[in-house]
Structures are given as C-alpha cells and as structure tokens.
C-alpha cells in the first residue's frame, strides 16, 4: 500500500491564499505607504549631487572612525560613480536602510521580551532558526501576492531574512549582563523598568550593535537577490548581466555591492566602538 504523501505544500498554499484574500486590503495599504517612503528617500538621495552625497558619507566616516575610512569611502564611491552605477547604488542603499530600520524596530522589543521571559524565549528560538535557514528565495514567492512586484516585496523578504541576528544578539546581550549586577540593581530596589533602562540595556548595547551590523550585512545580500522580483538597484544590474551573459558588467555591479557592504560594515562597527 502506498503511503499517502502529506500535502504540506498544498496546505501552505491554501493558507497563503486565504491570507491574501482576507488581508490583501491591509497589505496593499502597507505596500503603498512603504513605496511612498522608499520613493521619498530615493528621491532625496538622488536629488543631492553625487559629490555632495560622497562628501556627506566621507564626513560621517571621518567623524565616526577616522581619516582612513573617509579616504576609502571617497575612493570607493568615486569608483561606483565612474562605473555609472551611482543610481542603482543609491536605490540599493535606500532598500537596505529602510529594511534595516523596520527589522530593528521589530527586533529590539522582541529580543528584549524574549530575553526577559523564558517562555517567549523558547517560542522565539525555533522561529528564528526557521527564518534564518529557509532559503532566502522562498520568501520572495509569497511576498508578491501580498505586496506586488517591486521594492516593497523586496523589503518584506529582506526584513524577514535579516531580522534574526538583531533579535538573537539582543537576547544574548541582555542575558549576558552579569548576575551580580542584576542582584545589585534588585538589592537597591530597582523596578523592572529601571533595571532594564539603567542596567541591562546600556550593558548589552555593544552586543546589540553587533547584531544590527549583522542585520545590515544580511539585508544588503538579500536586497541584491530581491532583484529577481523586480527590486531596482545593483542587484538588477547583476541579474541583467547574468541574463545577457556579460561577466564584465556582472563583476562591476558585484564590486559596487562589495564596496557598499564594506562601507556600511566599517561604519556601523565604528559606531559600536565609539560607544
């Protein structure tokens, strides 16, 4: 007798279909709101002359890190400009910034709550494992019926894919605050909120920042993949190069991604160290 194949995929599809038909009104609202924000930020960044944005980035690098990073940033951005990849680079940057913001806004409270409640912790951990190990492309598929083709779906998939490290590091940061410090705060009669604000959060900040750094890196890699569902940016340059079999174009766009990644990584790391 044949063993019946469990129709797991079918269940998921009907579930998603139900969600889409019930909530597409809501998701479309979210989509148009998000799209508006993406457009605003994109327009603002592109409205600035290239040299002005470069100067701003270099200034930020100089203040947060030092002259070396500032010079590196100038050189890298100049190369991207020279290769004619400035606009895709800005589009990618916009997606990364917005996706990271959304991810962090969700991740921090979830991480804090899971760090303080053992129950929630046990609930959150397997979900995080799922989110991180599920191949990133898979998130793209349901994103389309919810949010349509384009940048918003890309951000949705990116947020899901890049959020876990921020949550994990927040949990870790709060849990690794030494027990005797918690005891000291308790002994002097601190409330839960006082303990969190005055002791746990400040002490976990370096770890939380490391998590946010990871989130940014993952967001960048996902934003590139999201070109497959129509997100503009460096990813779509790579995608086009693959379709036309042009390794030169592909590497140019790829190198631009690497430059942006290194820039964001060093910048957030120096932000962490300067604390």
């Amino acid at each position, binding site marked *: 007798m044949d063993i019946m194949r469990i129709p797991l995929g079918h269940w998921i599809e009907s579930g998603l279909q139900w969600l889409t038909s019930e909530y597409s009104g809501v998701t479309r609202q979210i989509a148009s709101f998000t799209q508006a924000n993406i457009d605003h930020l994109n327009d603002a960044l592109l409205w600035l002359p290239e040299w002005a944005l470069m100067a701003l980035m270099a200034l930020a690098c100089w203040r947060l890190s030092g002259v070396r990073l500032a010079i590196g940033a100038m050189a890298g951005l100049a190369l991207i400009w020279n290769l004619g990849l400035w606009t895709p680079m800005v589009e990618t940057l916009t997606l990364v910034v917005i996706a990271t913001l959304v991810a962090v806004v969700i991740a921090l409270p979830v991480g804090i709550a899971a760090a303080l409640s053992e129950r929630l912790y046990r609930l959150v951990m397997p979900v995080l494992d799922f989110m991180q190990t599920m191949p990133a492309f898979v998130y793209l598929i349901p994103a389309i019926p919810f949010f349509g083709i384009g940048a918003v779906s890309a951000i949705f998939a990116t947020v899901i894919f890049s959020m876990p490290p921020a949550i994990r590091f927040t949990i870790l940061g709060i849990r690794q605050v*030494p027990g*005797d*410090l918690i*005891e*000291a*705060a*308790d*002994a*002097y*009669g*601190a*409330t839960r909120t*006082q303990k969190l604000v*005055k*002791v746990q959060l*400040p*002490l976990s900040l370096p770890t939380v920042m490391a998590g946010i750094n990871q989130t940014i890196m993952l967001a960048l890699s996902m934003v590139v993949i999201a070109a497959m569902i129509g997100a503009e940016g460096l990813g779509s340059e790579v995608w086009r190069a693959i379709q036309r079999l042009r390794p030169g174009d592909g590497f140019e766009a790829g190198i631009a991604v690497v430059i942006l990644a290194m820039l964001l990584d060093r910048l957030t790391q120096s932000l962490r160290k300067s604390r």
Partner: protein
Amino acid sequence: MNETRSVKIKVRGLSKVFGKHPKRALELRDQGLKRPEILEKTGQTLGLSNISFDVYEGELLVIMGLSGSGKSTLIRCLNRLIETTEGDIVIDGENIPSLGEKALLACRRRHFSMVFQNFALFPHRTVVQNTEFGLEVRGVEKAKRRETALTALKQVGLAGWEDAYPRQLSGGMQQRVGLARALANDASVLLMDEAFSALDPLIRKDMQQELLQLQHKMQKTTVFITHDLDEALNIGDRIVLLKDGEVVQIGTPEEILTQPANDYVRRFIEGVDKARILTAESAMRPVRSTARASDGPRTALHRMRDHALDSIYVLDRDQRLLGLLEAESASQAITEGAEHITDYLTQDFRQVGPEEPLHNLFAMFSEKSFPIAVVDDQKRLVGVVVKGAVLDELARAGDE
C-alpha cells in the same frame, strides 16, 4: 552587650529549600534527616534549616560559616533576593517573606543597602553615578543625590575620583565605591556579603578597620557575611556561626572563644588560636638580668640597681628557676650578714609554660605585679611577661 537594645531584624524559623518540592524536604527534615540524606531521597537541597536570631539596632552582626554553610543564602533571604521557603523575617513590623512586589521594593529601598563580594559596580557608570544608584531608583532629585553621593565618597576616602570609571580603580578602591554606594543610600541596615574576601590581606585589614570606625561613628545596623573566623572575631559585636544550613552557636567573639557550643566550634577555634599566637610566648620579653644561686645579697642588689628592677629571678647553674628575690629581702640578707641569697627567696610569683593562652595570664596580674616567669619543660627560665606586654598584645590582635 547592652540588654536594653531594641531588635532591628527578627529572624524566626527560617528555612530555604532549593528545588521544586520543598514540602517533602521539610517533612524529612522534621523527621530528623540531615541535608545529605534529604538530597539523596528527594533531590532537594536543604539550604537553610530553622534559623532563628535577632539583629540588634546598631550592632555589627557577623554571620560566619564555611562554604556551603548557607551564609550567602541567608543574607539574600533577608532582602529577599532569594525567596524563602518558610519562616519569618520581621523588620520594623514588616514580615519580608509575605510582602507583595511593590511593598518589597519599598522595603528594600527603605531598609537595605548591600555590598557585594565582587563589588558588582556598574561598569558603564562613573564612580559617582554608581554611588548615587540607590537614590536614583528612589527618585531623589539630581542635585540632592549628587551631593549625598559626594559626601559618601569623601567618607570612604575617594574624594576626587567621582568621574573615574570602576575599571580604572584598584580592587580596594572599587570596594570603597561599593561601600559608598551603600552609605549614600542611607538605608537602615547594611548587608555586606563577603565584602572584603576578594581583597588582598593588607587592604582587607585596612578596610576592616575603616568599617569599624565608620560603624562606630554611624551606629549603622550591619550584617556581615564571612568565611574567615579571624575577620569575624575582629569586627563582630556578635557572631552567628552556621554549619550545613543550621545555626551552631550565637555569641560574642569572647563567648565563642571561651565557651564553644560543641566540638565543631572547638575545632574551629583551635585552628584560630594557633594562628593568632595569643600565647605567653608571643608576649614574653627576654629577662633583663638574673641572679645566680651562688651570688651574695650585695651582688644581687647591685644587679637590681643596674637594671632598675624591684626584684630579680634567681637561677641555678643549669638556668633552672629557683625563686624570686625581692629588693627588701636582699637588704634584709645584708643586715643579717647572710652569705647566700637562697634562704631569702620567695615562691610567691606565677610561672607558666610558653604555650599558656594570653587571656589566662591576664587574670594572674590581679594579685601582685611581679613579672610572670615563662619556663620551659626543664623549668628553665626563657623569659618574662609583664602586664603591659599582655595588654599590648591583646590590643594588637584586636587591630589585625
């Protein structure tokens, strides 16, 4: 101790079981089983069992025990950092184990400051921010709490360090910050959990001294945990001795030393007496001059005059002690024309062995003020002890 002192904290029948089934463990305890059997039968650890004692207003009470005795658990039960299993802890009419969450916070803020073994300073806060922590959580306004914190830092000798971070300070200084944090809080009871155990010995002695001075000045009710009997004897007004989660003896250091409650305490303090060298030998001084049995009275008197003595010990050829010659007896011998002093000696003095405990010697001085002769097992004179030396030795032992 003063009997009219009022009780600040009253602990009655306090027990603590670590584990999920405390009732079962307590039942077995009531049947007379001890900690290891209870652990074996139920998997529950009996941390504290039926502890009762009082903390008097203004006293420094030391809770002393070796590791595993439950002393750290006990101090944490007092401010309920650890939940108790049964029993009462009453402070100013409030029973701490039965307080609600809000009342507990209020109680901790009003009554308890705590100093920790590993300092537990907040690394992201400056010294003064650490010091004012207790006031800050209580909602004291900024200018006021800063002023109080600075005063506390001055008290512990850290004026000028207020803007440093804990990691920039040595261990001893860090614990001063810990102490300042506790003092600034102005709670009615100071809890000190092995507060000086992580410090090196010299700094530790200093801190003990300073704590005693502060305590003398402020009369702050203090509960001090230690595993070190020397420390307990040195600073405690009274000592609660714990073993395996039970009280073995409660008493003043003197009572613990002179009337140990059982063999455990006796073994405990034996170790100490040897270590503390409070014996005749430690207080004895070399004999300034002695007379020989063959000496005439004039020679003996001459020696006494040369060394400013009122009396002199007389030895035989093998240095054995024959007796004591007083100046009056010597002059009597001269008027009577005696050739030898041996007939004029007195035995009316005390002689002890080198191992004689110092507090025994103390009583001997009440009669006559001859120096006490210290003799070895061959009855040879090895030294003398004078009253001043005993007092000095006892005073120094108190300082250390």
